[in-house]
């Protein structure tokens, strides 16, 4: 239905796209043949020129990330595809893995050539059994065809690809957590420095890229970096997948050009608010970014800079829409529970503080809040943010702080009722079993 350029979702509804035959029939695996003739450094230049930014959440320029990899260490360079898509509200990589796995493989091969890497691994979250099976079968097909293994596409380039299945840990989406997990350990993020580009998986230089990022490469290499850079805005180039969910009529994954107005996205792609209700707020980039209220959305566009200017982040593009009936205390509790459950347990502030915050939110939601609770949470958040090894600490505090900041009255009402001996009852809870 969209008039947006479809780079990643082109032909996505074709039932045979996930097969090698179906992919090749639609022009697949042509770009990699061309790329294998190029100077690897030229490939990096091209990706830099495209302005492509990491689609996993951090938005770090992909070409720049590649250029940090030292080429003279004598050690192998490893490429990891981060398909540990676990940011609440995000389900875009799943679509790519399920519907177009060969696009992902071609993207990985392009990156592998650019980095001169002979071994890559796609780390897919454990719950994605079906996408895992699809992707794994695609890898098998590619091996059978000689597109992987010794002498890729008849060249002298050797490349082996492994599919690794996670087992349920949000933190493995953090790149060093993913590396640890792949090494057969707990997915606890590493101290930096050293950075993965220098010391990554198995002690070797490693690049970890998001699935969507790598899947964009075939188009960029086919059409040229500058053409990609011409799409979107100046600093947020290209298209991006948004996973729309929540109180909307048409949830799903949509590819839009960056810079697209949020309100248009809600109206056109999302099909408006469910049951004709009013929009209350959105979370534009997965649960770890601040909430934006309906009245903050005017003039805000779906690109990194515009959303940042509005006080939130584009993140992974996990676009969660909430209608007027949504209870923000319970939203805060729901997400606090998520983060407390997913804390890896290494750093003191996150391990202890995450649960503490959850327990306080729970008290407030269950009608046992006290006057000082909100200040206490704010103070705890201040001491968690930036005080941990990985950005999980910041992810944890963001929804807590933004719900309280933007909807203080909802918290105050519950607390005041509790203080006045008329507390909300546990049975009044909407989302908590």
């Amino acid at each position, binding site marked *: 239905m969209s008039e947006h350029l479809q780079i990643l979702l082109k032909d996505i509804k074709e039932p045979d796209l996930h097969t090698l035959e179906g992919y090749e029939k639609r022009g697949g695996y042509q770009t990699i043949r061309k790329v294998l003739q190029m100077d690897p450094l030229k490939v990096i230049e091209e990706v830099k020129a495209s302005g492509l930014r990491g689609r996993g959440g951090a938005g770090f320029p992909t070409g720049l990330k590649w250029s940090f990899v030292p080429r003279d260490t004598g050690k192998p360079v490893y490429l990891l595809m981060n398909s540990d898509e676990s940011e609440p509200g995000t389900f875009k990589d799943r679509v790519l893995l399920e519907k177009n796995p060969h696009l992902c493989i071609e993207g990985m091969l392009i990156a592998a050539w650019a980095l001169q890497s002979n071994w890559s691994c796609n780390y897919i979250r454990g719950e994605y059994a*079906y996408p895992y099976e699809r992707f794994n079968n695609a890898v098998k097909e590619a091996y059978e065809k000689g597109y992987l293994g010794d002498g890729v596409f008849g060249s002298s380039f050797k490349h082996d690809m492994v599919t690794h299945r996670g087992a349920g840990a949000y933190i493995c989406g953090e790149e060093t957590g993913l590396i640890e997990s792949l090494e057969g350990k707990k997915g606890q993020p590493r101290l930096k420095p050293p950075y993965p580009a220098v010391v990554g998986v198995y002690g070797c230089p490693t690049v970890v890229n998001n699935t969507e990022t790598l899947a964009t490469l075939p188009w960029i290499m086919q059409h040229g970096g500058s053409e990609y850079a011409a799409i979107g805005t100046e600093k947020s180039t290209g298209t991006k997948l948004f996973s729309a969910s929540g109180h909307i009529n048409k949830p799903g994954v949509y590819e839009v050009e960056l810079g697209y107005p949020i309100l248009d996205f809600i109206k056109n792609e999302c099909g408006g608010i469910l049951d004709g209700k009013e929009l209350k707020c959105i979370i534009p980039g997965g*649960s770890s970014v601040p909430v934006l209220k309906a009245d903050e959305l005017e003039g805000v566009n779906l690109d990194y800079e515009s959303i940042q200017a509005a006080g939130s982040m584009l993140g992974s593009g996990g676009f969660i829409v909430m209608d007027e009936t949504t209870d923000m205390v319970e939203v805060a509790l729901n997400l606090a529970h998520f983060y407390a459950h997913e804390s890896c347990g290494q750093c003191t502030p996150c391990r202890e503080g995450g649960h503490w915050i959850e327990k306080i939110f729970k008290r407030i939601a269950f009608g046992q809040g006290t006057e000082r609770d909100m200040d206490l949470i704010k103070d705890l958040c201040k001491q968690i943010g930036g005080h941990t090894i990985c950005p999980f600490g910041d992810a944890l505090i963001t929804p807590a702080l933004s719900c309280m900041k933007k909807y203080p009255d909802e918290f105050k009402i519950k607390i005041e009722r509790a203080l006045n001996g008329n507390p909300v009852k546990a049975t009044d809870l909407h989302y908590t079993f």
Partner: protein
Amino acid sequence: MGLSQEADRKIEEIKAKYPNARSAIMPALYMAQEELGHLTGDAIAWVADKVGVSPAHVMEVATFYTMYYKHPVGKYHFQVCRTLSCAIRGAKELTKHLHQKFGILPHEVSGDGMWSYEEVECLGSCGTAPMCEINDVYFENLTPEKLEEIIKELEATQPDIRYSTLKDAIGAGMKNTRSEVI
């Protein structure tokens, strides 16, 4: 003790795929779980032996990830997503339904060994909320009524809907399993 010969063979194959055999811990744990139902002491010992690491480190991995079961689960283990997108679209009703239907608490197993359930965190199926993963298969856009139908079908046909690391595939499917996200 130990696992099947097939598992012994498969783990060697998997180890060879990685630059370091230790990476095979997670697939090995899946295999042990597949054959033993949950991760028993024997399972830990088998993995430690095959991969060549200390049992303590295997246990670290086995307990860090939620998809490894340290205690028995039912033949059909329901995992209802409880995170935001599903929560605001009615996930609670699904859990409530399971609670009433099976008469057990989360992580408990029904007397006949058939059913168990738990609430889990975001399964990446927010656009088809609310949803529930049963063993390794997603059931999406659910209502308590649809869930009831699924339970009936499971009861009647008893399909294998686990992902088999040994066979690299999900067992036999069933109708009404998946919704198209696009």
